[in-house]
């Protein structure tokens, strides 16, 4: 009984359930929610957060964090715009930008693993540095005239359905991330690293190498997001995606990923991302003001951590009482 109970109150399951309930309610009661156009907007605008949330979840499970993701995205967008203005082909530019993301991640990773600096501090630093470099690179320009096949891909839908074209690659990436985190030895070792780095090292896990990989992957995904962002919104500016890191962090936290490391599931993180995205969409359709939306987001976050805690305490108390009564009767 406590077993099934504790499984039921696992927060990622709750978030998933909340998402489903929200979707059902919105489909039935919110005007304009269910049509293909709105759903494609919803998915398209949530995609950048979702894309970065994938590697971020792995990173947080291993006990680290990367706050520089939005700046990395901005930097690759800026470089993309700059190179495009210089007349380079987009087919060369995109790989260059992705490579740049890898370098950004590598810098973070090396500072964290080689110098042993705390990732929170390092990535607050690179958050400013990368954005600053983006500003130096692109300055006040806003580049909008990317080739239309690319723009159409980033903004377009699959036929007349609600799925953005870019959603399909995301699903593939999601599948890869789920398998890596939950089914491979590498993913398993991430949980051990997050929960106790020293014990993981004593068990032969290559802690530094694993973390370096994660930072590099995060940089790569962030720059992929930056490229997608610039194409999706047809605008490359140095301040693209400013503040996105907080949205990602909020969504991942909402999905039940523990920032002390060692706990969480990708399912929870992705549910958190789309729960926040859908909620905002619904609230806008219902004409809830931006200010009230902020409050709702905040309350949701607080509840997301208080809820499971309270539920668990109730469960524990109940189990304890039962044990006492059985001890007395036996």
């Amino acid at each position, binding site marked *: 009984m406590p077993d099934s109970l504790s499984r039921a109150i696992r927060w990622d399951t709750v978030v998933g359930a909340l998402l489903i309930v929200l979707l059902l309610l919105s489909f039935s009661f919110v005007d304009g929610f269910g049509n293909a156009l709105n759903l494609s907007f919803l998915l398209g605008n949530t995609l950048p957060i979702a894309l970065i949330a994938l590697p971020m979840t792995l990173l947080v499970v291993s006990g680290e964090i990367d*706050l520089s993701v939005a700046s990395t995205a901005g930097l690759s967008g800026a470089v993309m715009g700059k190179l495009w203005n210089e007349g380079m082909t987009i087919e060369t530019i995109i790989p260059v930008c992705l490579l740049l993301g890898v370098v950004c991640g590598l810098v973070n990773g090396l*500072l964290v693993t080689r*110098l*042993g*600096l*705390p990732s*929170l*501090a*390092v990535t*607050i*630093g*690179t*958050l*400013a*540095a*990368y*954005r*600053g*470099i983006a*500003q*130096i690179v692109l*300055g006040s320009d806003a580049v909008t005239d990317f080739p239309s096949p690319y723009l159409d891909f980033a903004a377009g839908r699959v036929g007349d359905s609600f799925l953005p074209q870019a959603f399909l690659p995301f699903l593939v990436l999601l599948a890869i991330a789920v398998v890596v985190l939950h089914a491979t030895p590498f993913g398993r070792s991430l949980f051990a690293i997050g929960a106790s780095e020293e014990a993981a090292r004593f068990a032969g896990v290559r802690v530094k190498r694993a973390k370096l990989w994660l930072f590099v992957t995060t940089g790569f995904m962030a720059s992929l997001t930056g490229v997608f962002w610039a194409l999706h919104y047809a605008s490359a500016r140095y301040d693209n995606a400013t*503040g996105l890191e*907080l949205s990602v*962090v*909020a969504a991942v*936290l909402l999905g039940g990923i*523990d*920032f*002390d490391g060692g706990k969480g599931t990708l399912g929870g993180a992705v549910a958190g991302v789309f729960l926040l995205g859908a909620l905002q969409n619904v609230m806008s359709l219902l004409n809830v*003001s*931006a*200010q*009230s*939306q*902020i*409050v*709702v*987001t*905040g*309350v*949701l*976050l*607080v509840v*997301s*951590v*208080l809820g499971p*805690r*309270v539920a668990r305490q109730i469960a524990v108390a109940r189990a304890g009482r039962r044990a006492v009564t059985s001890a007395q009767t036996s």
Partner: protein
Amino acid sequence: MTVATPPHAPATDVAKSSGTRLVDRVFRMRELAILAVFLVMIVVTQLGNSQFLTEQGIKDLLLNATILVLVATGQSLVVITRNVDLSVGSTLGISAFAAGTHLHGGGDPVVAVALAVLLGIGCGLLNGLLVSLGQVPALVVTLGTLYIIRGIDSIWVGSRQITAADLPDSFVDFGSHGLWAVPWLALIALAVLVATAYYLKHFGSGRELYALGSHPEAARLAGIPVRRRVLFAYTVCGALAGLAGALYLARFGNVDSGTGTGYELTVVSAVVVGGVVFTGGSGSVHGAALGALLLTSINSVLPALGVSSVWVLAINGILLLLAIAVDRVVALRVASALKKRNARHA
């Protein structure tokens, strides 16, 4: 430890003299490193621009740092207990506006400041209660209250704003005047800083903040009232954010619903640069204050040297990285010094 200590050879004398010096030196060293970086920066700037350290220039430097110093002081208390308060920016914003509305309605400046502090205490209590009673991760909770307080602020304030014209002249002047080059605001911040530092070092409950940040479970076993202390740290943090809000109003003479947005990252940077460790239990408020001074000064130094504002952000980030890297190197030195000391001799 060695087995055979001669019964009447108090080895403690040796240990005390060298040990005290070492430990003290160790902790001072980290702050000295920041101070050195700061001084070098100031000197270089003065060499490049003789206008930099005029009376006005010094006053500006101090004024710029004041508000961040206050908030960073409060934040370090919380970080020392292995928690964090991300909602300080929102708290600052809402208390600044509250003080502003009071003054706008012809209220008394002292009451306005008290009002801001009280509101700050309220926000701090909210955070503290959620974190200590709910026993939930501070990062999530305060990210939540960051949104909640900001949202409430925006709903309440709407598009209103308080401008200098709404404020009594005495209050606005207070924000920029002072004793020679030392503004009143900086004196307030200094007083708060010294009091907090003294409290942390010389009072039992102050030391307990370090203890419970260093090892929460052990603190519970040692009978430290963990929840009450955490609540206290958050309350002080909120109060100082509130006070900072009132001073912000005096200094900038302008508050709207966006005041203080994004301030949390600046504060966290200052605290981190100042050597307060995020895993709790170590660091000092004067370190954090130095970190705040360093960070705000960078923003004055670069324009004074004529560096284009395009470069400011990148340089800021790189300096931040440098500062924590230097701190880390110092810490490693310290660790190896300790290890050497540890090598005992029979």
